[in-house]
């Protein structure tokens, strides 16, 4: 496993969290079995630096926690409404962030058509598609390239 932003140990924590949120059910695979954590930089690279630092800190701390503690944490996030303002908002922040990472990786069908991505796609019955082809050639990329004075002139 390789990431520019997270260490292998931190990625293993992401896999552990993934297995709690998406443990697999016989049809849908377990999160860590899909290998989708390999693609985490496709997401994390676009986070603000402060969010990357928070994720690094969180995964470093959770590394030393047994799974039941992580489960307890998610249980608490679902009870956010019973906590005072700042505690509740931090629980929600955790929930938003971790669900976004895990489900973003899992349901983007990253290794279709042959791998686990296809299995997840088939498992939920996702078959949305655009079958048509564009009717006209696309002029805009050429116009935009030419419109940028910082681009080197084309030969």
């Amino acid at each position, binding site marked *: 496993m390789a990431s520019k932003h997270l260490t292998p140990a931190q990625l293993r924590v992401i896999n552990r969290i993934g297995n*709690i*949120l*998406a*443990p*697999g*059910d016989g*049809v*849908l695979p377990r999160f860590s079995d899909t290998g989708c954590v390999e*693609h985490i930089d*496709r*997401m994390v*690279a*676009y*986070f*603000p630096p*402060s*969010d990357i630092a928070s994720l690094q800190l969180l995964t470093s701390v959770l590394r030393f926690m047994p799974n039941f503690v992580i489960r307890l944490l*998610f249980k608490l996030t*679902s009870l956010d409404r019973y906590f005072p*303002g700042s505690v*509740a*908002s931090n629980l*929600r*922040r955790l*929930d*938003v962030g971790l*669900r*976004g990472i895990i*489900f*973003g*990786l*899992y*349901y*983007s*069908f*990253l290794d279709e058509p042959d791998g686990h991505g296809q299995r997840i796609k088939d*498992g*939920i*019955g*996702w078959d*949305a*598609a*655009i*079958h*048509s*082809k*564009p*009717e*006209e050639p*696309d*002029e*805009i*990329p050429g*116009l*935009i390239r*030419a*419109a*940028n*004075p*910082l681009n080197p002139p084309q030969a």
Partner: protein
Amino acid sequence: MLEAGKYYPRDTLPLPEIDSNSQMYWSGGIELDTTCKNGIMRGKAVGGGTLAYQAIMCRFDEYAFGPWRDLSGIQYLTVDEMSPWYEKAESLLHIAPVDERYRSECSRIFVEGHAKYGYQAKPELRAQRDCHWEEGNDCIMCLGGCPIDSKQSMPHTVLKPALKQGLHLIPEFEAKRLEVKPDGVILHGEYQQSERMSFFGRKLVLAGAPLGNTKLLLKSGFKAKLPALGDNFYVHTQWFHFGMYDREINAHKGPFQVYGSHDPKLRQQGFKLENTFPPPVGLAWLFPGYGREHHATMRKFRNLSSVETSIRGLHPGTLRLDKHERLIINCGFTDDEERRTKVAQELAHNILYSFGAKQVVTSRFSICPHHFGGLNMGADGTRSCVDPEFHLHGFRNIYCADTSAFPNAPGMNPVLTILALSIKASQHILREMA
């Protein structure tokens, strides 16, 4: 034209949801408000949010313009006086409702559910053409940009002719600070996240929407001269309500967001219902629960229908900077918004149950693709930032006509009004340049 995002050609759109969410929106997808209940979505691409949205077109009504006049003191904000500007905007786009032949089961539940409870739902006017539903196209795929250019997004409508007329466009330039000079404006920023650059212009039009414009001006020290800067920030909070059926609904198939509630009674109550459905990552993120229960829900994906409730924020929030110059977003929600959220939720649940839903669940969070204010328009410079002729108060060389200048949340889809106000603003600018 300086744009922070990249240009995504139709054949290399970042279509897996992981890529479209990360690359086409600021901060990797969403930005949370202080309560972390509301996720602000704002586009970061050439064309901005119009790649993902730019679909529903409506002229504002008196429920929108009335409060705008009261708050701003600007008298041209009426249905009649704005009509010519709307006409010009409409002439730039292909706008039509979706043919009823392609109405899905999700849409049927939405429309007939409204009727059952005494409300009206009507086809939305959508900016799209040649979607070829007869070939089995599913518009949910176009939420990360339309691969067949059917969606009338900004690059395909107003940008293309501008480029042909010689517009210079620099993508991947993030504006950091603004400096006012006697003869113009200097914008300092970063190109491709590495190279510092500055641009001088005689005039500057801010078009970074509420969060972008407000952050830039706050960082540049404008709060001292514009006391209202960062005040009067509003959102529409959009909640999804999912009904689980024992039959296939296939809400993800065919045209998208075909109907909306168009009912004065709901308008008066300050909310709207929309006929939408999220793609898999969005659904998994929004739907409460995890573990095996979550998998069971996702495996019944095709049996889900949804109704979205869009709540008009009527109480102003604020945009501020923390000590690290990060935005602190306060959506300003009060008990009144909470109450209306519950009323809207109850109607959405009733609609879904009345057509046989076995279970109805509301999303864990709300999303806010529509946000307004921070640089609100008004005649009084002590209580507003943008004057009736679209200048920043006291700065004749800086203009703004996007949603950051809106006096409050209109409770309606804003795109057509952004276009109409922009065209009106362009006439002022041209006159002044002449």
